[in-house]
């Protein structure tokens, strides 16, 4: 077995674009779920809106990528308002159902044949829509370490991506120390108590939904730019569930939880998958038990099982504080 290859794959996933996308998606979810107690199961929708806005505007309308980023942020704000207005006054699980439904609506509209000329149907949009972004790439050469290799462009994406992660982590840290953050956490613990203090709970929840959604849109930008293409089925509900696994693994309601979660999550996932693939290739695992196609399916089973076990035995994740998080919806 080629252990060098396996470690190389695992490490480049754990510090690379995958980890960045899911760290950003989970930072947004942390704002929703970890701090405010909002059950947003449509984070994939925020990523899709961010990614598609950039791709559509640059490829179809020839807009500068920087303006497209701004438009993407604006679109994410709109989506958050659309989701929040009908549901934030209702019990938590209504938001869950509406967000998951909206994310599916976005995906199905994006992949529809009817709107193919705008969104590219199930093939999505491929094009050089990151050209403006790569034009200011300061790295003349890529990275060539024993276990980590990047082309100049990949290196640029990774550096900017981690930069965004640092900015949003710091932002979360500041917000949660502020009076605003204390109100938000109080809403998670006891909405009625906060209301009785004269705070407009609805407004605070809405602000949290918008902020987390915008961070999700940034995850979508990284997703689109790093691959230079957007595909509707990348933004299915599985993405949201993976982001939840990342968040809960690292520890919800912890500033660094999403980042630690994303790195560990992707290292474990790719390591297990590549090891299994290697074992299947050299017939250590017999073919009737598992073949190459089935290796890819194990990933989803592991995430599902991991999500269950974490939620049952260690809902606070690796670094979380159990006291911080009293999750219960039924008032």
């Amino acid at each position, binding site marked *: 077995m080629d252990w060098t290859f396996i470690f190389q794959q695992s490490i480049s996933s754990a510090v690379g674009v995958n980890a960045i996308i899911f760290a950003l998606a989970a930072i947004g979810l942390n704002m929703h779920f970890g701090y405010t*107690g909002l*059950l947003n*199961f449509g984070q994939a929708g925020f990523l899709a809106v961010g990614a598609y806005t950039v791709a559509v505007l640059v490829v179809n309308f020839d807009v500068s990528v920087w303006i497209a980023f701004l438009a993407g942020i604006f679109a994410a704000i709109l989506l958050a308002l659309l989701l929040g*207005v*009908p*549901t934030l*006054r*209702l*019990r*938590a*699980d*209504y938001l*869950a*159902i*509406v967000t*998951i*439904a909206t994310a*599916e*609506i976005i995906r*199905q*509209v994006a*992949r*529809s*044949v*009817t709107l193919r000329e705008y969104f590219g149907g*199930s*093939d999505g949009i491929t094009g050089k829509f990151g050209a403006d972004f790569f034009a200011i790439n300061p790295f003349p050469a890529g990275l060539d370490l024993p276990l980590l290799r990047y082309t100049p462009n990949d290196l640029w994406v990774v550096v900017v991506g981690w930069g965004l992660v640092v900015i949003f982590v710091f932002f979360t840290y500041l917000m949660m120390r502020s009076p605003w953050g204390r109100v938000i956490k109080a809403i998670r613990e006891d909405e009625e108590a906060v209301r009785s203090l004269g705070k407009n709970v609805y407004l605070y929840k809405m602000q949290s939904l918008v902020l987390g959604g915008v961070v999700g849109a940034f995850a979508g930008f990284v997703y689109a730019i790093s691959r230079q293409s957007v595909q509707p089925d990348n933004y299915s509900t*599985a993405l949201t*569930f993976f982001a*939840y*696994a990342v968040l*809960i693994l690292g520890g919800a309601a912890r500033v660094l939880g999403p980042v630690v979660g994303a790195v560990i999550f992707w290292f474990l996932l790719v390591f297990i998958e590549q090891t299994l693939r290697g074992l299947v*290739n050299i017939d250590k695992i017999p*073919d*009737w*038990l598992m*073949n*190459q*196609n*089935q290796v*890819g*399916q*194990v990933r*989803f*089973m592991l*995430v*599902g*099982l*991991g*999500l*269950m076990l974490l*939620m*049952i035995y260690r*809902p606070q994740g690796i670094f979380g504080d159990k006291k911080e998080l*009293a*999750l*219960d*919806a*039924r*008032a």
Partner: protein
Amino acid sequence: MRKLARACVAGLLLALTSTFSIGSAQAAEEVSVISGVMQGPMGEPMAGVELSATGPDGFTADLTSAVDGSWSFEISIAGEYFVTIDPTTLPSGVALTEPDKLTKQVIVFMIGSPTPTVKFLTGDGPERDPMWQTAMQLTLDGIILGITISLAAVGLSLIFGTTGLTNFAHGELITLGGLTTFFFNKMGLHVVLAAIISLAICALIGGYAQDKLLWKPLRRRGTGLIAMLVVSIGFGLLVRYVFLYIFGGDKEQFLQYAGQAGWQFGPFSLTPKALVGLSIGVLLIGLTTAWLLKSKLGKASRAVADNPALAAASGIDVERVINVVWILGAVLAGYAGVMMGLNQGVQFIMGSDTLLLIFAAVTLGGLGTAFGAIVGSMIVGLFIQLSTLIIPTELKYVGALAVLIIILLVRPQGIMGRKERIG
């Protein structure tokens, strides 16, 4: 390199899976294109014909023929692909010459090499009448879909009512019913017998064991409802991909009654299997309603839904009621899977694809009310089918989900819900 591997999980599933695959799945750069051209009896191109494709590793694609009748999709993994045509999207006056062969198989041995063109032969078919006849037929389809959804929705609603759990793994009970029926059918049993055994398995494993081994211990631990909701999401993901692992990603038909000719009742066309399936579905819902209203246990389940502590204080064995509700919910959902299998075939994703519609129905009717769930399901079913008169068929679920959001804006407690449940 060109190793042809036969995938099968354990000897007894040998008959089930016959997926061919090629050694390296990592060479994802190269692609092959599977394509075809839809032509009418005179060779004229037919646009807007809908097809769907399935393949290894859970591959699926939905296709619509272009103005010149052509359609195609790219694949990056070699293996066995199936292209299924939706005959109802053929233009008026055109029909398939082999109406029971809706699915064609394409085997791709190596990525990059040319693949054979897929052909569906067409001939003259019945002229289809305009709007009102389509509307009548869609109404009937909507009723069938509504009953299917309500079978699952009643269970979901009862479980929510008695335990507070929003069960995101409920769709997997539908898949369990469909896939186990297919499994026993493939083992040689007649589909009716297979369905009965499958429902027993749903009751035992999907209902009784799931509650006793997973949810009851969680309730005992005092796990919060949101935590349980996330557990159900993880459980659903796990079970879904275990199904894919064992049964493969292809859409399969039951061995009996697969290509049944429809009966014509005035403007309606209905296959006998759909009629029988529908009747049993209505009967099951009727029995459930009667059980809830008349039987002691049914009344007890409503009491538990209303106030578990009070119910327990007045001598109701709450845990037993919850267990019975789980079994009932599993059997109803399992039968929904059988019904879907009869009409559309079975696939590992069939349940989770329906889950959002079930949620829409339950929310529409009012969370936690069984009768509301039935009403909500019928509305969702009819709305989805009738909306295709105006919007493209591929967007019909989008319309239903959009209506869900609008309903929440206007009347968040649902049609039959009580206001205090939603705050």
